[in-house]
């Protein structure tokens, strides 16, 4: 049995806006195994970043529990809680917004070392900063250590963010879209570097993106979780999901993606949605949230029961899908567009 480093149990999260309650995450259940490649994908606003923040306890869940190394983090106090906060780090979506413009690279990397009491004197701190810069290929170190964010390229800023997340020697890093703001010509290199850090430092990385091709690249040997309007709709082995998606939303998504190959992308069959309107979180449809758009919708079933993430009989043992007809073993019948 693989060991989970982290587990989310029936996590819900909502926000209040005036009198309205926005349910942003509902019934999220999944675990992250030590050193596995796990990627959360989904379209804008589906709750990926919120999930990432909840994992790091930057945001409490409205209900549900997060267990880190088998312990409910809500029960952690004092030194134990501090240790948890050091062990779990997040790398933010936007490297431009997340770096303080008045701090040099040295300031940004030494600050967390000093506040967590991790450096060993002035010299020790400087040496550790250099090590970290080495790890993320910000070399030669002297060329970068005194630079301010505006003097760095997008890719270099991203490397600073990663190095900063590594200062506390975390065992789990949530990397939120941390390459999508960066130009195509360098994003794959950043991803490769993170995958390499996992091997060298033994850190587990949960990668969050809306780019399925990138998710595939990162989690080829691992798993992908697909989110839609605040729920996980499919969770399974990456290669299985890419080759043989089960959930209707995953199928539509994969069929819709243009690919960087003219012949392939032009001969691709696109599954038509029944509706292109994305429901508001405050007016979620009853039953399965995808049902008004789902090309395989079964009337009286899909608009009635909220599907749970379950394993399907006869399917890949590691795969889970939230779809009532699939759960009941019904054959899906495509509606005419």
């Amino acid at each position, binding site marked *: 049995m693989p060991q989970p480093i982290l587990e989310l149990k029936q996590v819900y999260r909502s926000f209040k806006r005036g009198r309205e309650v926005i349910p942003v995450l509902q019934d999220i259940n999944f675990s992250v195994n030590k050193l596995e490649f796990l990627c959360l994908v989904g379209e804008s606003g589906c709750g990926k970043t919120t999930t990432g923040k909840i994992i790091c306890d930057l945001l409490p869940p409205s209900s549900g529990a997060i267990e880190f190394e088998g312990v409910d983090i809500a029960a952690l106090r004092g030194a134990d809680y501090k240790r948890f906060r050091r062990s779990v780090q997040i790398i933010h979506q936007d490297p431009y917004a997340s770096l303080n413009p008045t701090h040099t690279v040295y300031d940004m990397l030494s600050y967390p070392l000093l506040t967590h009491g991790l450096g060993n004197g002035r010299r020790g701190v400087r040496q550790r900063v250099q090590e970290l810069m080495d790890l993320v290929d910000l070399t030669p170190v002297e060329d970068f250590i005194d630079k301010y964010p505006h003097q760095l390229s997008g890719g270099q800023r991203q490397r600073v963010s990663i190095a900063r997340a590594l200062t506390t020697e975390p065992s789990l890093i949530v990397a939120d879209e941390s390459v999508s703001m960066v130009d195509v*010509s360098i*994003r794959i290199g950043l991803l490769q570097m993170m995958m390499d850090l996992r091997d060298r430092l033994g850190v587990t990385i949960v990668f969050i993106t809306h780019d399925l*091709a990138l998710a595939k690249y990162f989690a080829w040997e691992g798993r992908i979780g697909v989110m839609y309007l605040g729920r996980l709709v499919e969770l399974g082995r990456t290669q299985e999901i890419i080759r043989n998606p089960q959930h209707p939303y995953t199928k539509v*998504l994969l069929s819709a*993606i243009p690919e960087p*190959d003219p012949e392939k*992308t032009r001969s691709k069959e696109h599954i038509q949605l029944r509706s292109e*309107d*994305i429901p508001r979180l405050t007016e979620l449809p009853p039953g399965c949230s995808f049902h008004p758009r789902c090309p395989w919708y079964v009337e009286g079933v899909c608009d009635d029961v909220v599907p749970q993430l379950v394993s399907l009989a006869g399917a890949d043992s590691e795969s889970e899908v939230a779809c009532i007809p699939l759960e009941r073993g019904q054959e899906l019948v495509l509606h005419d567009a």
Partner: protein
Amino acid sequence: MFDQQREAVLRVEDLSIIYRTKRGDVKATSRVSFDLRPGEALALIGESGSGKTTISLALIRKLPKNAVVTSGNITYRRDDSVQDLLKLSNRQLRAFRWKDCAMVFQGAQNAFNPVLKIRRQFEDTAQSHGWTDKTAIRERALNLLELVRLDPERVYDSYPHELSGGMKQRTLLALGVLLNPQIVILDEPTTALDILTQRAIIDVLNDMQRQLHFSIIFISHDLSLAAEMADTVATVYAGEIVEIGPVNDIFYRSLHPYTYGLLTSVPTLEHMQDHLQSIPGSPPNLIDPPAGCKFHPRCAFATDACHKDSPPLALDIGTHPAACWHKDRLLESRKEPV
């Protein structure tokens, strides 16, 4: 498909543009030339800051005040009349934008006036170009809204805030072609839209082009979009077109190390791709770009010649023009099994 033989609707020759700034002149466009033929879809691809938006702003004469066109000309042909776009009067320009050339900008969903119904925005556009018959405007508008796969009556009577981002984007496309332009320019038409919304926009654009036969110039950093929509692809690097050719030639027979580098840095959906690799370094600062070939600091094939002299966009080796001294070496390296 477009007709290779027909005369270009738009011809850009030797266009150079700088932005004057306190820190120095930004050389945003350098000696850019290309032709756009009737019905052709041309993609300009390149990374952020490479100068794509600058080129398109020049085409509709909407460059910001600190921009200076330092060389070149842009000729536009409609039927048998030819115009030099850089010499149009303000009145001619107003007619040119919309009637001849429509542009949909990056993030343009916010371009609608929030207090006016969509109907008013169609009517105002038509009327400001001398078209006053409201029934005729309505008829054309509803046809176009249907073509972009919206519920025409409902959308025509809506306020912008009643429409989703993707619906607004499609309404904007319909509005853009209201006056039947020959050229539609799209700057990052799908960036920041969700995958399913992107798909709807791509399909709609393809339908529209098939029916209305306009030419498209679209600008994107997204190679997949170019693969799917373009007849012709031009790669832009540091303000220059470094390679241009038919879409299949660019994707399967690229001749420029930068284009090739881009192609080997994007993952596809199938297979594990062990050979993927980023281009080292980052794009240059355009105030003080490298001498010679601007790509040389990042190029695996660079030699002394590349440091000294800028390679011309020439058709000497291979199927289409590219600006590189060592195309033969790239071709050679690609023959070796990976």
